[in-house]
């Protein structure tokens, strides 16, 4: 108990450990894996991201040139980012902000002339 008392007293007189979060925000680590965003102009709608995603939360429609992601189902693993052949998919360093209703990411781009690869579209059931 004596040792613990010393601990407690040290805590008491030392600087507190608390980071006053909403007031005091620590900048995120630079390689933190956060929210996805697609640089839609670059995207070739190949569907590689959709195919590789372990959570199967991306839907790419190459005919309509749309890229759709369910951010609530995304597990921020970054697999899709690594899979993207044109590196148009990025992760921010912060997570998607909280929301009060279900939100989705829906992006529409223009169809590139010649998709490099023949991609398969996986329809989300």
């Amino acid at each position, binding site marked *: 108990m004596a*040792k613990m008392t010393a601990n407690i007293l040290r805590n008491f007189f030392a600087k507190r*450990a608390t980071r006053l979060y909403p007031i005091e925000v620590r900048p995120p680590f630079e*390689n933190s894996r956060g929210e996805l965003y697609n640089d839609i102009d670059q995207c070739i709608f190949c569907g590689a991201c959709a195919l*590789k995603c372990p959570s199967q939360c991306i839907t790419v429609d190459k005919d309509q040139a749309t890229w759709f992601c369910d951010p609530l189902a995304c*597990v*921020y693993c970054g697999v899709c980012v690594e899979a993207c052949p044109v590196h148009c998919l990025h992760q921010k360093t912060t997570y998607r902000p909280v929301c009060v209703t279900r939100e989705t990411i829906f992006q529409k781009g223009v169809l590139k002339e010649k998709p490099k690869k023949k991609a398969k579209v996986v329809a989300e059931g």
Partner: protein
Amino acid sequence: MAKMTLPFGPQHPVLPEPIHLSLTVEDEIVTQAIPALGYVHRGLEKLVDIRDFNQMVQIVERVCGICSKIHAMCYVQGLEELMKVDVPPRAKYLRVMWSELHRIHSHLLWLGLFADAFGMESLFMQCWRIREKIMDINEATTGARVIVSVNVVGGLRCDVDDTQTRWILSELDEVEREVRRLESTFVNDYTIKKRTCGIGVLSAEKALELGAAGPTLRGSGVAQDMRQLKYAAFDSIDFEPVTALDGDSYSRMKVRYYETLQSIDLVRQAIAKMPDGDIAVKVKGRPEGEILSRVEQPRGELFYYIKGNGTKYLDRVRIRTPTFANIPPLAAMLPGIELADVPIVVLSIDPCISCTER
């Protein structure tokens, strides 16, 4: 005398996870304890049918957020063996580093929760405060605090550079100092000893017979640790299992406490011996055949059975987690103890239900 039945769980503030124990107590002494599971069962082993073996890495990482890195490691090591992939040595050392970091965070987490179980809130706070440093290391080096997701079949997804390793080492020094400060509290404190010594005793024979694993086994004096199998880079790292002899909650606590310190040392060794080079190789082919893979988790021995059939979808993945092995010993320990000791004994096996039920 008058008996009483009470449901312990599924939502119980002492248990972070939903497990249910139907307890029968007489005069606050437990006479019967029937466990009920299934509140966390997701059935993710079955996802092999719809996720390919690479995607499964992300999925087995989410068997449990506390030991996720090591799950993935066990899984990819199995596959690598099955597919005869030679992982670059640097990756092996990095795997050791991250897995031991994981162990530190898991043990600190547990030490805190255990302190909470015997009602010492300040100790809980202290442990978790220290643990935040490890979480920062995780986030800085891998990009995520909890599910670090560094393993892929064939190696790793990210590397650390020199500045990072130096920073890790200095942080670890700090962590070690702080942890050591708690040594006499955990090991000698009168009230803690009073609450843990002789509570939930598991003899060595009983532990072996009931298939206990990890610190629960080592707390009973059996020096068995899967790291002795020398997976990853453990073949060139000095390692000696930590044991304690009494088999009670106190011994298990001591084992985990000293393992925390040991893991700090292992991380240091891994960093010191880490060679330069690649961190991953390209994997070709599809897994075929069956393989077993075992690693040491914070809670004990993890066992993966993987069966591939030559397609990118595996036939079967079977995960036997340490807590799964520790539940029967727990069921054997509960009868006869006091109700107030139930949280202590339950936590003393460091239960992780999400691992157990997958």
